[in-house]
């Protein structure tokens, strides 16, 4: 590898340098018998003898159990005694013990990334049990490949970056508040950003909350006060995140705070101003059911407890145009010259709790919302039944302010529909049952019918609530409402719905209809490179095992921003996110991926392809046009390097040089019979391991080369393999579309297929000799099948080559070549025969 000293020294610890190999390579090889696991099939002593002949190898030592304590000690002793600087352990899969041996060599003072493994158990002894000779040959070649790779291994720095002990929480709904409180109680500084004039989110405007039907603001209000009074929390209301730069532990945040025109510290919320304000505008908090003034407080319990002026509605705060509030305010809290503010600060972690929006009923015109006044949404109902709402808690029809005698509740509006949102909104069923119970509580004589599709009362205590609703005489009818029509004079409504349990069309009249609105995602409103689902919710790092982490290190999600959820779930998830975030904050330093990409600036042509490939936004352009990798963001997938036209990107331990060395070594002997198989570390390689663990037998001609991600497989790898005469080449990755551990690597790899195939066409290489496959970690069987199929392809190709050779050599001398070609078909035959016997054996066992 060539050295590149042009890498910047600015920001040390963020952008690791490209290192050069030391001059004298002293490789130690440690073949392992793994008891009988390897030793019973592979002739380890032959492998050891062979290893001694390889260039650079100065010490070879066979062990029965290398991973056991004595085995590890032997490695450490050998390193000291023979001054070894590269270690190869030929034993099991690197997914099993690479970490173990890295720690071992680190214990002997060697850089851990100078230790690699040759997988002669999962890839050899367990899958070629019937062919010891072939297995031994394969094991020898795998060791040789590892030695070839080890020659150019360089020490990798184990760096970490400092962590700023503060957090940014975006969104001050119940989730954001909970996360902030948790982190603040742990002692970290929290910046809580809210775009509305008050914190509290959707929960603050609800009346009662299920399943116990306790008063929403009564439980939320004290929490809101806790937040604003907490010494560690800085609430920035009416603000949105403008820009986030940096990386985990060191985010620089720029926030834009809109002008409030009222000094929140001076305002006492005495309400004298609203008496003089001449402007009426619809009240958004009250779902436009009533009016508010241009100077207003969202609701009495708002935090910060301060009025705010809507600059678009206000006539003018100067005395010339209006200025009545300015004149009236004894506290002099009105600031006509107030301006938008830019606030900048540094944080170590970010929690996104931006929540969701209620679904838009205008998108479903068949239900008549907006045209028929008595069709209301569930949130409008919340305001009508709320004692602090526009009707002071009286449920009335908006058309004539009379009490409805019959109310229908329509489920699944804006959810579970391809045209709006495919997913279930999770909370609407319980919400509707709560609404029905509230109506019954206030007006027991009202007829309430819920039209549901599937009533999903899944949470704790939800069934009790449902039971209560049944007891109260609320009717439940299974069927999705087709349409709602209005009687023009009475403004009553007629709904048409099929009672699907009785296969019967119902045309029923109601005084009022409540649409149970689902949720709509708003993700993507924070300037961070986090993937978003089609319906605009943030995608977690892993749906089961890392549900609050994101693909960006140091950024966490919780609450409605992740998926629609109720209050309880939001709070649970918020605490989880705070807990995860505190792990980073508490450590004080964050380790950088040691194998992160490095750009060799003297080769880089500044094309910027890598920026588009990086799923983590880890590659940035500095002011001078240079591209640099932010080590703390890079996850080492290598997708950037796979498509770098100049090969300017170095992926440590998976460099082009190392992979080419592996290909060349693998194809040194009988290349036409070989399969060069590339497997990604997280899916395909584990799939191949599973084939080994499950003892699924396949032919011995595959040589697997591991990379972190299929995105790393450059077009050049296949080209080089074919140039050297490989029988067949396999690119294997995680399943499309969404299985990739690094999000998009497999997509970029798939896009390279046409280029490879066109190249093969030009070179006259049979199309079937190259394959792209998607193998998951659970598909050992598929791996076996692919290996068997591709082996046949390679063997077919080898036969053709042999025929050509004999045809050529007939004209010349009949020599050693013919003898060689005689041998190969025979071995092939025996292989096939053996394969069949093992298969029949397996069947019998089954």
């Amino acid at each position, binding site marked *: 590898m060539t050295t590149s000293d042009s890498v910047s020294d600015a920001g040390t610890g963020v952008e690791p340098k490209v290192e050069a190999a030391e001059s004298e390579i002293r490789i130690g090889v440690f073949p392992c018998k793994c008891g009988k696991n390897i030793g019973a099939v592979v002739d380890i002593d032959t492998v050891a003898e062979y290893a001694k002949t390889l260039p650079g190898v100065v010490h070879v030592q066979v062990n029965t159990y290398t991973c056991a304590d004595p085995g590890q000690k032997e490695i450490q002793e050998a390193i000291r005694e023979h001054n070894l600087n590269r270690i190869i352990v030929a034993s099991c899969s690197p997914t099993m013990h690479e970490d173990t041996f890295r720690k071992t060599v680190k214990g002997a003072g060697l850089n851990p990334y100078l230790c690699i493994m040759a997988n002669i158990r999962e890839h050899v002894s367990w899958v070629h049990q019937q062919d010891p000779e072939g297995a031994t040959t394969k094991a020898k070649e795998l060791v040789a490949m590892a030695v070839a790779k080890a020659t150019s291994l360089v020490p990798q720095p184990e760096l970490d970056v400092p962590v700023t002990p503060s957090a940014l929480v975006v969104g001050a709904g119940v989730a954001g508040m909970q996360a902030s409180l948790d982190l603040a109680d742990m002692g970290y500084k929290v910046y809580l950003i809210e775009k509305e004039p008050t914190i509290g989110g959707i929960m603050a405007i609800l009346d009662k909350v299920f399943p116990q039907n306790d008063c929403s603001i009564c439980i939320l209000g004290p929490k809101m006060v806790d937040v604003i009074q907490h010494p560690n929390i800085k609430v920035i209301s009416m603000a949105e995140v403008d820009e986030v730069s940096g990386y985990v532990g060191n985010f620089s945040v720029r926030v834009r705070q809109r002008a409030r025109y009222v000094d929140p510290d001076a305002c006492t919320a005495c309400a004298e101003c609203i008496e003089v304000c001449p402007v009426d505008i619809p009240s958004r908090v009250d779902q436009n059911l009533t009016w508010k003034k241009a100077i207003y407080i969202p609701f009495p319990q708002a935090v910060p407890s301060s009025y705010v002026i809507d600059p678009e509605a206000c006539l003018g705060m100067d005395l010339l145009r209006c200025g009545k509030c300015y004149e009236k305010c004894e506290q002099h809290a009105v600031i006509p010259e107030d301006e938008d503010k830019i606030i900048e600060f540094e944080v170590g972690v970010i929690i996104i709790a931006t929540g969701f929006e209620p679904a838009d009923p205008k998108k479903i015109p*068949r239900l008549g919302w907006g045209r028929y006044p008595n069709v209301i949404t569930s949130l409008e109902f919340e305001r009508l039944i709320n004692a602090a709402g526009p009707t002071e808690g009286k449920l009335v029809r908006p058309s004539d302010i009379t009490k409805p005698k019959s109310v229908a509740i329509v489920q*699944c509006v804006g959810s*579970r*529909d*391809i*045209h709006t949102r495919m997913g279930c909104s999770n909370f609407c069923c319980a919400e509707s049952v709560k609404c029905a119970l509230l109506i019954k509580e206030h007006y027991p004589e009202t007829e309430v019918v819920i039209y549901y*599709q*599937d009533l999903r009362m899944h949470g704790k205590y939800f069934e009790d609530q449902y039971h209560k609703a049944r007891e109260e005489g609320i009717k439940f009818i*299974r*069927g*999705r*409402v*087709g*349409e709602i029509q209005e009687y023009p004079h009475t403004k009553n409504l007629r709904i*048409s*719905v*099929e*009672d*699907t349990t009785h*296969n*019967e*069309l119902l*045309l029923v009249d109601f005084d009022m209809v409540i649409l149970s609105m689902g949720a709509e995602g708003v993700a993507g409103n924070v300037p961070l490179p986090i993937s978003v689902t089609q319906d605009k919710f943030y995608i977690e790092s892993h749906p089961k095992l890392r549900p609050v982490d994101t693909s960006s290190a140091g950024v966490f999600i919780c609450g409605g921003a992740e998926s629609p959820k109720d209050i309880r779930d939001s709070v649970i998830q918020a605490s989880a996110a705070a807990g995860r975030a505190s792990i980073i904050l508490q450590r004080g330093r964050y380790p950088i991926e040691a194998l992160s990409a490095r750009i060799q600036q003297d080769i880089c042509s500044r094309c910027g392809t890598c920026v588009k490939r990086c799923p983590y936004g880890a590659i940035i352009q500095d002011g001078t046009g240079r591209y640099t990798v932010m080590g703390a963001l890079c996850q080492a997938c290598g997708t950037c390097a796979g498509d770098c036209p100049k090969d300017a990107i170095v992926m440590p331990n998976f460099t082009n040089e190392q992979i080419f060395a592996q290909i060349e070594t693998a194809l040194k002997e009988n290349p036409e019979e070989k399969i060069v198989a590339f497997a990604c570390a997280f899916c395909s390689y584990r799939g191949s391991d599973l084939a080994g663990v499950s003892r699924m037998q396949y032919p011995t001609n595959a040589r697997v080369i591991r990379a972190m991600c299929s995105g790393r497989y450059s077009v050049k790898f296949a080209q080089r393999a074919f140039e050297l005469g490989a029988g067949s080449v396999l690119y294997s990755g995680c399943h499309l579309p969404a299985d990739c551990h690094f999000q998009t690597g497999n997509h970029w790899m798939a896009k390279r297929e046409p280029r490879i195939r066109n190249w093969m066409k030009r070179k006259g290489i049979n199309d079937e000799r190259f394959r792209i496959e998607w193998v998951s970690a659970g598909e050992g069987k598929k791996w076996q099948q692919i290996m068997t199929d591709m082996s046949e392809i390679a063997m077919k190709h080898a036969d053709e080559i042999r025929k050509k050779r004999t045809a050529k050599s007939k004209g010349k001398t009949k020599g050693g070549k013919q003898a060689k070609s005689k041998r190969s078909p025979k071995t092939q035959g025996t292989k096939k025969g053996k394969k069949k016997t093992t298969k029949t054996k397996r069947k019998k066992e089954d």
Partner: protein
Amino acid sequence: MERTTDADRINEIQHSAQPCFQCGICAASCPIFRVAPDFNPRMAVDEVLRTGTVAMTGREWFCAYCLMCEERCPMEVALSEILIDIKNLSANDGKVPPSIIEMMDVIRFTGKVSHASKRTEKKRRELGLPELPKPDVDEVQTIFEMTGALDRLMRFREAEVEPE
């Protein structure tokens, strides 16, 4: 009740009906179901899914192909196509109602479904629109013969059923 079990067709219908989750929005929107409680598009889909057969009651011919069900289906099930397929199955079983046979005949002999009235022609002249093209009846006949429609028509007529 007679049931058809034309396996391939049924499989096709079943496949396109699989996303259906029986919400009933199609039935609630169907103008025919309002007046003919025996014709329920949801049940038609449900039956194919559940039993793998299609009931031949003659009611499958009620569908007016207004596409309201398909328009509102939250799962985008191709209901109208399913209902047409069911009609085709019914036709293969010789259950074509006389009115449909009559309509086929009208097309065969006149080349069009409905006759353009004198008033239409007058109106078109007034609006300066070109005269409606005269269908080539011989061509239509040939099409009928070559596509096998004529054979089908003859078979339908043999099996003609009296309206229930």
